[in-house]
């Protein structure tokens, strides 16, 4: 039995996971223009082997009786039930902090579809893939966010977190610099 040295990456991952990407939904601003839905479809098309790509964000529209337009997408749960229930391990939180899917290894057992409390994982039978929003973590800004004119979708990332903090600092500096 030999012990192997501690991997630093594990620690870094955990730290960075706290600050990396999060997609924030500001439903009150959503106009249901469906631009995000279109952008999503295009962004995920390459992952569909034989099927027409379907968007991984949907909008529950306000009804005549009222309500608001509600964009629905993966909430990136902390103790994510879809990760817990994944039999292959293809669904896992990656270094970006987002729960992502390796569709090459998804076998379509639908265990995650059965446990997602938000109902945002869809079963694509022909491709045997349980598709959900994987955060488009390879894009600097997720395409759905990039096209959202009313800014109902926004990202928080390590970068914007730092920037927001700087702005907050400068605001505070200005306030404290004021006489009186």
């Amino acid at each position: 039995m030999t012990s192997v040295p501690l991997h630093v990456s594990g620690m870094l991952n955990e730290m960075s996971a706290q600050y990396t990407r999060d997609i924030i939904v500001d439903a009150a601003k959503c106009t249901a223009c469906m631009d995000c839905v279109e952008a999503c479809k295009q962004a995920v098309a390459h992952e569909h082997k034989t099927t027409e790509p379907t968007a991984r964000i949907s909008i529950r529209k306000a009804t005549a009786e009222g309500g608001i337009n509600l964009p629905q997408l993966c909430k990136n749960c902390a103790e994510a039930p879809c990760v817990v229930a994944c039999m292959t391990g293809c669904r896992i939180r990656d270094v970006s902090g987002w729960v992502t899917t390796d569709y090459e290894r998804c076998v379509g057992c639908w265990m995650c579809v059965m446990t997602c409390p938000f109902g945002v994982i869809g079963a694509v039978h022909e491709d045997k893939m349980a598709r959900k929003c994987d955060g488009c973590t390879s894009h600097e800004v997720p395409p759905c966010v990039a096209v959202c004119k009313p800014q109902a979708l926004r990202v928080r990332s390590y970068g914007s977190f730092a920037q927001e903090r700087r702005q907050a600092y400068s605001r505070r500096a200005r306030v404290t610099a004021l006489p009186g």
Partner: protein
Amino acid sequence: MRYVIIGNSYAAVGAVESIREVDRRGDIIIISDEPYRAYGRPLITYWIGGTVREDQMDYRPQHWYESNRVETMLGRKVARVEPGERQVVLEVGERVSYDRLLIATGGTPIIPPIEGVDAEGLFTMTRFDDAKAFKTWVDQDHVKAGVSIGAGLIGLSVFKAMKGIDVRLTLVELLDRVLGLAMDYESSAMIEEELARAGVEVRTSTAAEAILKDDEGRVRAVRLKGGEELACQTVVMAVGVRPNVDFLEGSGVAINRGVIVDEGMRTSIADVFAAGDVVESKNVLSGENQVIAILPIAYEHGRVAGWNIAGQDRVYPGGIPLNSLPIFELSLMTMGITLTDDRPGLDVLVHTGERVYRKLVFDGGRLVGAILVGDVAHGGVLTWLIRSQLPVMCDRQLLLKGDPLELEASRQLIAAGENSDWSREATPELPVR
């Protein structure tokens, strides 16, 4: 601190991932009699069928053991545990000492005591090596027909495997329908129809009485109650699994059907924890402890055991029985209480359509169970309503139809979601990420 884990599967992986959130320095030693890195256990039948390659079986990335600094002792079986000495004793005689021990040994297939179970060509189907032995046997071209004894989750999985390798299959089931512990008559009938379409024969309400052998001791047929013989060259024994506890005899660890644990996955012996298919834990619907042998529960047990073994104090809130088994295009799910015949007082709502069956079971204002066949949309929402036992406030028809869920239902979704984070709910003071 020296953590020793017996078993190397979902519960063990969950435990390691928790321990390392709390303790980066302690030593973790995993002992398992299987010679593989943790793999997706249900994938063994996919592997037989050729839809998953061996290099796609790993449950975690290759570097997982190294990144989490886990030492492994694979291919070694634990013969007994000696809590007095704080040691586990391997079959080869070697001793491994621990400060804290986790028993995550899962289940072992039940082999009914019928004549001929020692026949060559008879297999169980819970381990990768079982699948390999089976495939080697079946690849010899004398195998034309196979019989699965048991038409539960594993029996049906075997069918899927055999589909890929061109063996005529018969399922023999003691109950009067397939998946009879979770499915009602209507839904089983749909599955049986789907199986028939695929050329699988289903024999229900009958028992295998004996396995008949040829002169060389190989499987030749299965004899059913009443004398009928089903000619076959291989048999899969899939009548169920039971907790793997034999090696704990004499250890003092309290056992009922499975290992008895408290809400924090602690056994009756200090510093010995247990998790996964080997334990009895709370079913939130009955409030009673029972073995629910499914992988999400095994992983969650492991998470809670891992945090606690590393010194925290978290509680496992309990789980519910779940099944998901796609049979070709026909998906099926069962959650919670699904059989209502001997349970008066429950309300049942059913929606049927072209190859679609959705049934919801309510107990007063709460959803307690569901069967979905054909249309599994938003199954997770139902699961969380059942598990959280939140009162159902939205129009029940919306839940029943599943799609489209309108605004009202989505409000319910959000309410359910707020309670979805079982670990956080259990211990609100601890940050999860």
